[in-house]
């Protein structure tokens, strides 16, 4: 593959939206990139490259921010401490409780940083692809959170005790338990990893489709040659900019929510019987 081919595969649009007759709206095909290079039968795609890059960014940022730690913090140290304090205080401490929360701060902090960096790829020029719009990258994260809170619950209450803690609501007696126990089991143990995964995936997927739609639709309308279409094309670009600002909020919120829910599940598993 030539150098321009690599550049196109890495930066520009995926192959499925190549120009043809008429306008092809973005769909799930917009997320399928041709591999940049192949190694041992496995293609290395742009999304994989972005995830590796995000690990480097997170590691670099935290090492640089904590390397010359001083009582009066520098700019970078201040930024690092702000993020750390946010995760430590308003996510971990408020939801897990003051007794055990410090054990979970490293996990929650790295989770938060990793998701934030991967999400904000959606708006960084030339990258412009949220790597978590490929669901495969989120499944391991959700599985880790799932195993973590179940493991914590078993550590605290014992295997049978945790099952009882998670499925039997306090203060309920009688035959209504026959209905409530399966429901609680499904909602507290089975569905949680799926909703964690799908929430992050769905938001990234929908946001990226919206941005691609307004950008490519605007470009198509502007180049169509019809003056009236051109006006709508400008409107479409305007909407694209507005959606970008909405995304700026959503990208952060989803990282926050994923971490918050992980912390909440852990806090719930650790809670004493009521």
């Amino acid at each position: 593959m030539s150098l321009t081919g690599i550049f196109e595969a890495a930066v520009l649009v995926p192959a499925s939206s190549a120009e043809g007759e008429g306008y092809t709206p973005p769909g799930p095909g917009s997320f399928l990139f041709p591999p940049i290079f192949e190694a041992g039968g496995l293609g290395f795609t742009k999304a994989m490259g972005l995830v590796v890059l995000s690990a480097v960014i997170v590691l670099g940022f935290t090492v640089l921010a904590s390397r010359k730690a001083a009582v009066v913090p520098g700019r970078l140290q201040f930024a690092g401490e702000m993020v750390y304090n946010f995760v430590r205080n308003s996510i971990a401490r408020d939801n897990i409780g003051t007794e055990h929360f410090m054990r979970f701060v490293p996990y929650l902090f790295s989770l938060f940083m990793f998701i934030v960096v991967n999400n904000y790829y959606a708006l960084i020029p030339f990258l412009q692809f949220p790597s978590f719009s490929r669901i495969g990258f989120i499944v391991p994260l959700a599985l880790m959170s799932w195993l973590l809170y179940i493991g914590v619950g078993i550590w605290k209450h014992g295997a049978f005790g945790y099952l009882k803690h998670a499925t039997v609501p306090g203060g309920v007696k009688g035959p209504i338990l026959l209905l409530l126990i399966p429901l609680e089991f499904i909602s507290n143990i089975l569905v949680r990893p799926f909703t964690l995964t799908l929430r992050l995936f769905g938001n990234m997927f929908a946001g990226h489709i919206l941005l691609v739609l307004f950008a490519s639709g605007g470009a198509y309308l502007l180049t169509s040659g019809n003056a009236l279409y051109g006006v709508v094309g400008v409107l479409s670009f305007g909407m694209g900019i507005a959606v970008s600002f909405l995304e700026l909020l959503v990208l952060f919120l989803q990282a926050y929510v994923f971490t918050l829910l992980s912390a909440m599940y852990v806090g719930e598993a650790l809670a004493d019987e009521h």
Partner: protein
Amino acid sequence: MEGSLNLVGLGLSAIGPGVGIGLIFAAFISGVARQPEAQSRLQSIAILGFVLAEALFIITVALAFVI
């Protein structure tokens, strides 16, 4: 006309969470207006409610493209 009926269903399914999220934030705003010092406590509860209401729609988004 081309397209998938799935997307009509997707639009319909946005109604419920839309109303729900509106109600959640309306309650949040009036709560903060009555008691501004409770904002930080209410905020995480409001966002939790928002997230749970939104999950319904997000699941539909996934299903609309999968099926």
